[in-house]
C-alpha cells in the first residue's frame, strides 16, 4: 500500500480523539538531536483544520486493525473498513519529515488493539524507540496507554513519551459495559494510578540527580465521549474533578459524540454532535482548573445539566446574587475571579493598577475585562456603571441576549433546538 493511502486511513481513524495539545514540558535543544519542545510549554498550534480545531501533533494510529468491538468506534472488529499498519520506519520518517518543515510539534501515537494490549504496546515502543534513538527525535511525543497493558511495558512507553493518556471514553461503568464490552473500569484506572506514581517518582529523582530517567514529564490526560450515553453534565464534571484531584491529570478532553455507526444502543446516525454541550463542559472544566470552582457549585442534583443559554460562570453568578456586587478597588483576587467577564489575567492587572490609580469602567475595559458581562456584578469606587439598567428579574434575560450574540452559528442552531423543545 502507498504511504499516502496509509496516512489517509490512519489519520482518519485517529481524528475523533480530541486531545491535541502539546503542553507541559520544556526540553531544550540537545546537540546531535532534532528539535526541542520549547514552544510546547503553552501548547503551539501549527494549523487549524476546517472544523476549527487546532492541529499541533501528527495524530495517527499505528494500526487501525482491532480485535475489540467497541460499539461507538469506526475501528471496531465488526466494522467493514480498510485496514492499514505503519512500519516503525515509515512512522519515524514521516514524523521527522513533518517536524523539520514545522508542520507539527510532534507525534500523537495511538493504536487499535492488534493481538492483545501487550503486543500492541510493544509495537508502539519499537516505533518510538526508533524515532528517539536512531532518528534522534527530541520533539514532543504523546502516546496512548492501552488499558490492560502490563506495568513494565507502560513504564517503558513512559520513558519514551512526554505525555501518556488512558482514555476513560465513556463516563460511567454502565456505559462501558454496554458499549465497550472488552473494557472495564478497573482496567482503565489501574494504568492511570501507575502513571501518577511513576511521574511523581521520576520528578522527585530528577531533583536529586540530573540524569534520572524521565517518565512522562508532561503528565497524563484523558478523554471522554459526550452524548453517546445518558450521563448528566454533573456526573461528567464530577468525574473530571475527581480525576484532577486523585490522578493529577493535566487535562480532561471532551469529545462530542459523532455518530459513525448505527447501533440500537447508540444515538441514531442523523443526530448532530452535541457541540454546545461539549463547549459548556470545556468552559466548566476551565473554571475547575483556573478559577477555584468546585463541580458541586456549578451543578446541583436538582439542576444536573448546564443551562444551554448561559455560560456556566454567568449561570452560577445569577444564582448567587447575594455575593454581588463586588467592589473593584478593594475585592481580593478570589472574589474578582468570581465575576463573569474577569479572568486570571485581568484580575491580576486590576490588583496591580489599583495600587497606583483610581480605576474607571473605561480603564477596566482597557485591561481586558469583558465589561458587558462584568458591569452587572461590579462597582468601581463605589459606583455602578452609569446608564446601566437592570433588575434581578431582567438580569438573566439580558445575559442570555449577550451570550446569544457570541456563540458560533452551529451552536446557536442547537440553542434553537432547545427552545423549540421547551
Amino acid at each position, binding site marked *: 500500500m502507498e*504511504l*499516502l493511502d496509509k*496516512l*489517509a486511513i490512519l*489519520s*482518519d481513524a485517529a*481524528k*475523533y480523539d480530541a486531545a491535541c495539545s502539546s503542553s507541559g514540558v520544556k526540553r*531544550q*535543544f540537545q*546537540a*546531535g*538531536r532534532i*528539535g*526541542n519542545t*520549547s*514552544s510546547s510549554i503553552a501548547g*503551539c*498550534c*501549527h*494549523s*487549524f*483544520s*476546517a*472544523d*476549527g*480545531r*487546532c*492541529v*499541533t501533533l*501528527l*495524530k495517527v494510529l499505528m494500526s487501525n486493525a482491532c480485535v475489540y468491538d467497541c460499539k461507538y468506534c469506526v475501528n471496531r472488529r465488526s466494522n467493514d473498513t480498510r485496514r492499514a499498519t505503519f512500519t516503525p520506519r515509515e512512522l519515524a520518517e*514521516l514524523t521527522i*519529515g*513533518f517536524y*523539520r*518543515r*514545522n*508542520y507539527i*510539534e510532534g507525534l500523537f501515537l495511538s493504536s487499535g488493539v492488534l493481538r492483545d494490549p501487550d503486543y500492541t504496546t510493544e509495537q508502539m515502543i519499537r516505533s518510538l524507540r526508533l524515532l528517539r534513538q536512531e532518528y534522534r527525535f527530541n520533539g514532543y511525543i504523546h502516546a496512548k496507554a492501552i488499558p490492560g497493558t502490563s506495568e513494565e511495558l507502560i513504564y517503558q512507553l513512559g520513558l519514551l513519551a512526554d505525555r501518556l493518556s488512558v482514555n476513560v471514553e465513556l463516563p460511567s461503568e454502565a456505559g462501558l459495559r454496554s458499549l465497550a464490552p472488552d473494557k472495564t473500569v478497573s482496567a482503565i484506572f489501574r494504568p492511570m494510578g501507575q502513571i501518577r506514581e511513576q511521574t511523581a517518582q521520576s520528578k522527585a529523582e530528577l531533583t536529586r540527580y540530573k540524569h534520572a530517567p524521565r517518565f512522562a514529564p508532561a503528565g497524563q490526560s484523558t478523554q471522554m465521549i459526550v452524548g453517546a450515553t445518558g450521563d448528566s453534565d454533573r456526573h461528567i464534571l464530577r468525574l473530571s474533578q475527581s480525576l484532577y484531584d486523585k490522578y493529577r491529570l493535566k487535562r480532561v478532553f471532551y469529545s*462530542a459524540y*459523532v455518530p459513525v455507526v448505527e447501533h440500537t444502543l447508540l444515538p441514531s446516525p442523523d443526530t*448532530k*454532535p452535541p*457541540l454546545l454541550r461539549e463547549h459548556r463542559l470545556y468552559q466548566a472544566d476551565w473554571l475547575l482548573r483556573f478559577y477555584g470552582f468546585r463541580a458541586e457549585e456549578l451543578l446541583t442534583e436538582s439542576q444536573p445539566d448546564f443551562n444551554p443559554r448561559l455560560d456556566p460562570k454567568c449561570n452560577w453568578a445569577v444564582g448567587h446574587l447575594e455575593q454581588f456586587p463586588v467592589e473593584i478597588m478593594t475585592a481580593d483576587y478570589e472574589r474578582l475571579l468570581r465575576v463573569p467577564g474577569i479572568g486570571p489575567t485581568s484580575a491580576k*492587572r486590576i490588583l*496591580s*493598577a489599583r*495600587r*497606583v*490609580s483610581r*480605576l474607571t469602567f*473605561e*480603564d*477596566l475595559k*482597557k*485591561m481586558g475585562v469583558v465589561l458587558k458581562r462584568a458591569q452587572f456584578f461590579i462597582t468601581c469606587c463605589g459606583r455602578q456603571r452609569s446608564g446601566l439598567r437592570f433588575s434581578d428579574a431582567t438580569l438573566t434575560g439580558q445575559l442570555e441576549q449577550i451570550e446569544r450574540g457570541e456563540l*458560533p*452559528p*452551529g451552536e446557536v442552531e442547537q440553542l434553537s433546538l432547545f427552545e423549540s423543545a421547551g
Partner: protein
Amino acid sequence: MAWTEIVFQYDGSFDGFLCCIYESYLNKEFPIAFYGDEECFSLYAVRLVITEHEHARRVLRSIVKRSARAAELLQKVFLTCMEDKELHLYAFVRKLYAEGSRFLKNQSDPIYHPLVKAIRHMNGELEKLRGFVRFSDYNGVLGGEIEPKNRVLPLLRGHFCSRYANESFFIYDRTHRELLLYAKGRSRILPVDALHLTLPGEEEMQYRRLWKCFYETIAIRDRTNPRCQNTHMPKRYRNTMTEFLPLDYEAQYQGAIPPKTPAASANPAVPTGKSALEIPPQSGRSAVASAL
C-alpha cells in the same frame, strides 16, 4: 525657552529614533511627526537627525537607569506596526523622564496603554507564526517565507535557531524585505529586496502531498466550522502555508510583495527603501547561497 514644534526626519532605525530623543531635549524641539527617508512635505520646520551611536547609547542608558523594563518595551514596540509609533514612544519616554516608572503598573494609563495594545497585537502574530511558518527543503537547506504586519523576524530568531540548531535555514519576511539566515550556530538578519525560490525536488513534493492529505483528513466533517477556523487562523496567514498553496507554488509566485500604495510604505520605521539599495544587484537566492 519654550519648546518649538518640529518634524523629525531620521533613518528609520532604532538608534536613529533614540537620537531624535537626544536632539529633541538638546534643542528643546517637540516632535509633531516623524519621517523616514521618504519625501517630507510638511509646512513645519524639519530637523534632520543623523544617527550617532554614542548619542543613542546615552539615551538608552538614561532609560535603563529609570527602568530596564521600559527600555525593553521601547525596543519591542519599535518593531510593531502601530500607527505613529514614534510619537507614542516619544510621549512614553517623556513621561518616564518626568514621573519615573510607577505608571507602568497601570495598563490602562493613557500613555502606556497604546504600547501595551501594540505589543499584544505583535505577540499574537508571533505566537501564530511560531506554528504557521512552513519550511521546504531546498537541497538540504530549509526555507520559508512570511508576510507579517509587525517586524517579527528578530523575535522569531531565537525560537527557530534553537529548534533547528542542526539545520541550515532561512526565513524571508516579504513585508519588510528582511531575511533571517542560520547555519552552524550563527544567524543574521539582512535586508533583501526580493527572493526568488526555485522549485524543490521530488522528495519535497511528496512531503507536501502527505501533509495536504493529513490536513484534509484530520477535519471532522460533521463539525465543519469556518468561522472558528478563521478566528484562529486569519486568511492573511494562508498565503505562505503549504496546506493552502499549490504543490508547485514557487513556479507561480514571484518574490516580494509589491509595495502597495505610497501611504502603506510611508511608515517611516520600516527601513526598506534605504537598506534595499545597499543590497548588491544579485538575486535573493544567490544572496542566500553566499551568506550560508
